C-alpha cells in the first residue's frame, strides 16, 4: 500500500466510475452529491474517518435518494487506492447476509455493502421495508455494473490454510488501529504495523477451540524478525531460542509463532501447543506459495 499517484487521465476515469444512477425504483437523487477526500473525510464522519484512512482511502462520493412516503437512502462510494484495500474495508465488519453484488456483498436490515475493484460501496436506508430492500439491491447491482472490471484480492489471503478456516472471520488490514479493533493485542504498536505492512487475521474451528491466526507481511527484510523479537519479549515474555516461540498463557491457552523472511505468523488462543505449532506450520507452508 502507498499513496496513490494516479495519472490525471486515470483520475478522470475514476470520476466517471463514481457516477451513480439518478433514480432507482422511484427513489430519486435528492440534493447535491458530496465528495470527500483524505483531507476532508473528517468533515463527513468526525471520529470515524480514521478507519478508512487506515486503508488507502482516496475519495468518497455520497448521495441521498428520496421517494415520497418512503425511507431515505444514502449511497456512499469509497474509492480506495487498490482493490486490496477495498476488500480490506469490506472485511472490517463481516456481519450480514451474503448477497451476490459486486465481488462480495453483505445485506443486513436496510444496509447493503459490497466491494468491487477499488470501490467499497455502502447503501443504507433509514428503515427497512420490502420495497427498500428491493431498491437497495437494484441500486447495488447498478452501481456494481458501472465498475467495469473486478479487482484482485490480497495475495496474502493465500497464506491462510483452508482447513477449518471460518470464512466470515477473515479481516485484511495494515495498521495496529485495525488489529486492535478485531483483536486487541497491545496499546502500543507491538508488531510495528504501518501503512505498508499487510496483515490478515482469521479464526479456525478446531474442535471446540477457535484459535486466531495472524499473518503479517512486512515491506523490508529484518522487520519481521524485529517484530517477532519484540512480540516474544513483551507479549509472551519469552526469549526465543530460534525463529519460533510458543507459550502457555491465561486460561490455559497457547500463543506464539515464528518469522520467515518478511513474514510473521502468530497464533492466539490455541487449545494446545501442538495445535498452535501446527497452524503456524501450515501457514508457513502456505506462505511459500504467496506471490510477493
Amino acid at each position, binding site marked *: 500500500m502507498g499513496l496513490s499517484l494516479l495519472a490525471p487521465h486515470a483520475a478522470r476515469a475514476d470520476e466517471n466510475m463514481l457516477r451513480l444512477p439518478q433514480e432507482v425504483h422511484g427513489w430519486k437523487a435528492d440534493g447535491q452529491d458530496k465528495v470527500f477526500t483524505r483531507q476532508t473525510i473528517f468533515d463527513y464522519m468526525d471520529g470515524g474517518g480514521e478507519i478508512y484512512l487506515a486503508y488507502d482511502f482516496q475519495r468518497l462520493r455520497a448521495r441521498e435518494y428520496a421517494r415520497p412516503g418512503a425511507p431515505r437512502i444514502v449511497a456512499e462510494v469509497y474509492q480506495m487506492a487498490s482493490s486490496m484495500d477495498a476488500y480490506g474495508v469490506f472485511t472490517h465488519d463481516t456481519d450480514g447476509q451474503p448477497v451476490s453484488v459486486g465481488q462480495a456483498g453483505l445485506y443486513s436490515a436496510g444496509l447493503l455493502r459490497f466491494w468491487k475493484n477499488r470501490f467499497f460501496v455502502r447503501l443504507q436506508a433509514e428503515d427497512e421495508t420490502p420495497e427498500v430492500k428491493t431498491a437497495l439491491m437494484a441500486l447495488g447491482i447498478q452501481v456494481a455494473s458501472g465498475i467495469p472490471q473486478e479487482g484482485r484480492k490480497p495475495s496474502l489471503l493465500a497464506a491462510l490454510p483452508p482447513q477449518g478456516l471460518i470464512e466470515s472471520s477473515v479481516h485484511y488490514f495494515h495498521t495496529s488501529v485495525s488489529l486492535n479493533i478485531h*483483536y486487541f493485542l*497491545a496499546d502500543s504498536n507491538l508488531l510495528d504495523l504501518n501503512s505498508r505492512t499487510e496483515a490478515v487475521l482469521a479464526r479456525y474451528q478446531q474442535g471446540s477451540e477457535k484459535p486466531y491466526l495472524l499473518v503479517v507481511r512486512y515491506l523490508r527484510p529484518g522487520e519481521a524478525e524485529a517484530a517477532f523479537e519484540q512480540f516474544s519479549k*513483551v507479549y509472551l515474555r519469552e526469549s526465543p531460542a530460534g525463529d519460533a516461540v510458543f507459550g502457555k498463557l491465561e486460561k490455559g491457552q497457547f500463543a506464539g509463532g515464528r518469522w520467515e523472511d518478511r513474514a510473521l505468523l502468530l497464533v492466539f488462543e490455541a487449545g494446545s501447543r501442538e495445535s498452535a505449532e501446527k497452524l503456524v506450520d501450515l501457514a508457513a507452508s502456505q506462505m511459500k506459495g504467496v506471490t510477493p
Partner: protein
Amino acid sequence: MSRRDESNTVTRRDFLRGAAYGTVGLAMGLEGLASAGQGRPFAAEKPLSEVVLVRHEAAVDAGHQVNSVVAAEMLDTAMKTYTGEGDIAKAWQRYFHPQDKVGIKYTRCSWHRIHVNQAVLDAITDRLITIGVARSRVTANDSGLPVKDCTALINVPTVKVHALTGIAVSIKNYINFTGNRSSYHFDGSSKLAETWLLPEVKGKTRLIVVDMLRPYFGPGPQINPLHQWDYKGILVGTDPVAVDTVCLSICQKKRHLFKGEEWLISPPPRSIAAADSVYHLGTSDPTKIKITRLGWEKDLLI
C-alpha cells in the same frame, strides 16, 4: 515507529488478568479477576456512586419508533427514584434553579445516526420549565453549545461502542467542547476526560441522562442495523465514570449474546479507566456502584 518502552505497554494479557485499565475488565465481566472493592458488582451496600436504570417495554415499538409519553414517564420515574423525592418538581429542584442558564449537551452524530431521541430532550426541557427555568435560558445542542454562558450542564448521551474509544457515552459526549475532536481519538482516547476539566466546563455538570432506548454495540464506524437493539432504557446518574461503566457492562454482555461467544469490546475503553484513576471524575469499580433497576426486566443484561 510508535514502539514504546516495553514497561509502558499494556498488552491483552495485562488487561485480561486485571493488571491494567483499573476495574474496566471487571465491568466487562472478565473471568478470574479479583474484585477491587467489597461485594457484588453493581450492588454496593455503601456505594460511591449510584445510578438508576428504568426500562419500559412500550418505550420503543416494533418499528423502532420511540413513544414520547412513555419516555417522559421513564425519566420522571428515574429522577424521583434517584433523588428519593416523591414530587417530580422537587426532584429537579435538587439540581437546577430558575436563575440557571442550562445547557443540554446531547449526542447527534449525523453520519453515525445514533442520536439522542427528541422525546428525551423534550422531556428534560419540559421539566426544567416546570420548575421555573425560562425556555430562553435552556439551550440544547450537540456542537455549538454556548458552554461558557451556561451555569449548569446536563449531559445527555447515547450509547455506542466505538472503534477507537471502546465505548462512547457521557465522558466522550463532551468531546465537542474541545474544538479538536479527532486529536482525542489517539492513544486509546485516554485523554477524553480532560474535556470535563476545561475551565468553561469544569463543575457545571449537574446531571447525566443516558438515552439507552436504542444503543449500539458493533464495530462501527458507521451503523450496521444488526448491531443496534431496542434496550428501551433511560439511565440517570451524576458520576460520568460510573454511568459509562454501567453502559459498558450492558453492551459487553449484548456483544457476547449476539455472537454466542466471547466478543470483547475492542480496544478496551481506556478512557473510562483514565477518567477514574487519572482525572478522578468518578469510579469505574463495579463493586462501588449501586444500580437501582426499575421496570421491564427482560434481557436486562446487568
